């Protein structure tokens, strides 16, 4: 077992990743002889068209920022002048591949010579084009690499980055590269740890590498104990991670049970945690799992997301909220979803307006529900008929799955209470399986102060009294219906608000993992009505 070896570089994207090294080989070619000038020109033009078509396909599956980068490459490839870079060499007797590589290399060297680092960083995008066309010429596909591995090379091409699935972890360790490259930008956006400028790293294929994008270094053969500790540190959870010691149910000082639940966006939020530390998942926000516009109608991909969280939770309930799109969460390329108003077509309004999205998600959820304790939460419900409309979609899709002989189960459907009209009339929502209070949106609608506008943000805190009055009224109303209530907005994870929420009658709190310990401590020091416990 080799000793750990640390290599210093620069941070291009924060976070820690650890995995086996994938040593990417610089693609050098053995170039064939020229057939004829006309044939070589024809072959090259065809390869360039093919490369452009591949990038167009990739672009249509990518988010807006990624598509913009690919657009540049597509524009380059569809520019007739790019062929001119190689045609002179073909005329001089080179084969298409050799002429292309030579012509592009000279062009790339010109760009790299720029004193401006932003310009020279663009060279990586042109190298990517060169490689892709060469691959098309030689019939060899651009190679992907195993999920979860650490990509080690001089540089990484945007299209290689974009066609790789980073959801299963992994990171990037570059001996060269630039913190200003397009890939660095994409890595930061997708939270893929990345270090550049490592110089020689001398790792063998498959050797374990830890990429510390926060400190800008890589460790070859890290010591075993260092790995989990550093991973956790990266997420600033080290001192806050609830341990398995928090077994059994939590009680207030006067013995009333309180449930602690997790708010999660994707697997990285929960997979490090011991499920025994919580009662289950109180809110999984599915819209944050979308990495490409096509994901919203990709039933198989969604099914995998949901199965993964249910497998982690075991018998514990998992509440999955259907796509809450619109408002500040737009999906590029999704027609009708460009409405960025908080008062417009978002949440369930958008799901009902675009039923093909709701139907695909309903099928994925019902299939996952066959193997776990799944509950469904509808976002932005305003009137009871919206639940009925969505239930009808589930019933129809369930019948379809039954006809196809696919295992599925109809989960209970509850609602997110985040519209004041809903909070005031919970007695009308008798078809809901549960009420979960989304206090962030409820507060912004109540105070008529948008969450994304810093100029009015202080109004949320100033108008808190109104929020708590409404919560009290709503919880009292819900008691008459016997439908369970919980709270999953930011205040659920704020120990300063725990007393008032208990006072309103809440007994179930759902929050980000990092908030669990603080709220747990707060609950133990309070009685069920929210007053401080007497010292014994």
């Amino acid at each position, binding site marked *: 077992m080799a000793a750990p070896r640390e290599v210093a570089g620069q941070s291009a994207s924060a976070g820690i990743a650890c995995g086996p090294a994938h040593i990417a080989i610089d693609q050098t070619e053995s170039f064939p002889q020229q057939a004829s000038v006309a044939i070589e020109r024809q072959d090259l033009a065809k390869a360039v068209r093919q490369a452009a078509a591949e990038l167009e396909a990739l672009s249509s599956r990518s988010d807006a920022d990624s598509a913009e980068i690919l657009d540049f490459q597509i524009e380059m490839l569809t*520019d007739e002048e790019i062929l001119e870079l190689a045609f002179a060499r073909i005329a001089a007797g080179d084969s298409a591949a050799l002429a292309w590589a030579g012509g592009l290399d000279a062009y790339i060297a010109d760009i790299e010579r720029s004193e401006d680092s932003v310009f020279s960083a663009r060279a990586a995008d042109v190298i990517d084009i060169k490689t892709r066309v060469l691959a098309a010429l030689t019939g060899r596909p651009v190679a992907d690499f195993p999920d979860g591995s650490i990509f080690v090379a001089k540089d990484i091409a945007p299209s290689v980055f974009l066609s790789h699935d980073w959801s299963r972890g992994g990171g990037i360790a570059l001996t060269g590269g630039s913190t200003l490259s397009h890939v660095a930008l994409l890595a930061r956006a997708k939270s893929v740890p990345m270090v550049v400028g490592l110089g020689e790293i001398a790792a063998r294929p498959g050797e374990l590498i830890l990429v510390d994008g926060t400190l800008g270094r890589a460790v070859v053969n890290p010591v075993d104990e260092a790995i989990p500790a550093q991973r956790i540190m990266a997420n600033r959870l080290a001192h806050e991670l609830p341990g398995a010691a928090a077994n059994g149910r939590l009680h207030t000082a006067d013995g009333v049970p309180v449930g602690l639940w997790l708010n999660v966006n994707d697997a990285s939020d929960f997979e490090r945690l011991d499920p025994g530390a919580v009662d289950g998942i109180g809110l999984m926000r599915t819209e944050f799992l979308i990495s490409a516009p096509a994901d919203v109608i990709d039933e198989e991909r969604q099914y995998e997301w949901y199965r993964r969280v249910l497998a982690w939770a075991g018998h514990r309930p998992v509440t999955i909220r259907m796509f809450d799109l619109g408002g500040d*969460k737009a999906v590029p390329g999704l027609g009708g979803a460009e409405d960025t108003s908080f008062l417009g077509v978002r949440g369930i309004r958008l799901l009902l307006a675009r039923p093909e999205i709701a139907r695909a998600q309903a099928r994925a959820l019902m299939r996952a529900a066959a193997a776990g304790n799944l509950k469904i939460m509808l976002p932005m419900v305003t009137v009871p008929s919206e639940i009925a409309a969505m239930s009808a979609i589930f019933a129809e899709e369930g019948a379809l799955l039954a006809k196809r002989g696919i295992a599925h189960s109809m989960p209970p459907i509850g609602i997110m209470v985040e519209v004041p009209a809903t909070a005031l009339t919970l007695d009308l929502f008798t078809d809901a399986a549960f009420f979960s209070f989304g206090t962030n949106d409820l507060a912004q609608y109540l105070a008529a102060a948008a969450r994304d506008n810093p100029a009015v943000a202080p109004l949320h805190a100033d108008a808190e009294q109104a929020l708590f009055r409404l919560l009290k009224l709503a919880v009292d109303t819900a008691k008459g219906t016997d439908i369970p209530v919980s709270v999953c907005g930011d205040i659920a994870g704020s120990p300063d608000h725990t007393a008032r929420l208990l006072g309103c009658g809440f007994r179930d709190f759902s929050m980000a993992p990092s908030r669990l310990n603080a709220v747990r401590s707060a609950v133990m020091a309070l009685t069920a009505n929210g007053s401080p416990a007497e010292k014994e």
Partner: protein
Amino acid sequence: MPGSSERQDVERPAPRFQAEIEVTHKIGLHARPSVVFTRLAKSFPCSIELDVDGSGVWLNGKSIVKIMGARIRRGARLRIRAEGIRAEEAIEALKDLVARNFDEEKKHGRTA
């Protein structure tokens, strides 16, 4: 002759127009601005050519390969000339685009 000069050639029917403008975009014509510039240029039927800092070399303004290769940075003085149908309109539109810094500030993106 500084500034924008509009000169109608009496001998030939095709109208020619020219303008001069300084690149004020903080980086220059890197990837995205080049895409935006050449796409706009290609939307006009007339020929469009660029000269950087009075080099005397006229580049095809519809070619992103040429424009990226010229490494046009902040402070560069561009001369843009167009000849043919809608040449005057093309010059105005391209000059405006450079003056607006290629609409770069309109960034999209999702907040968490």
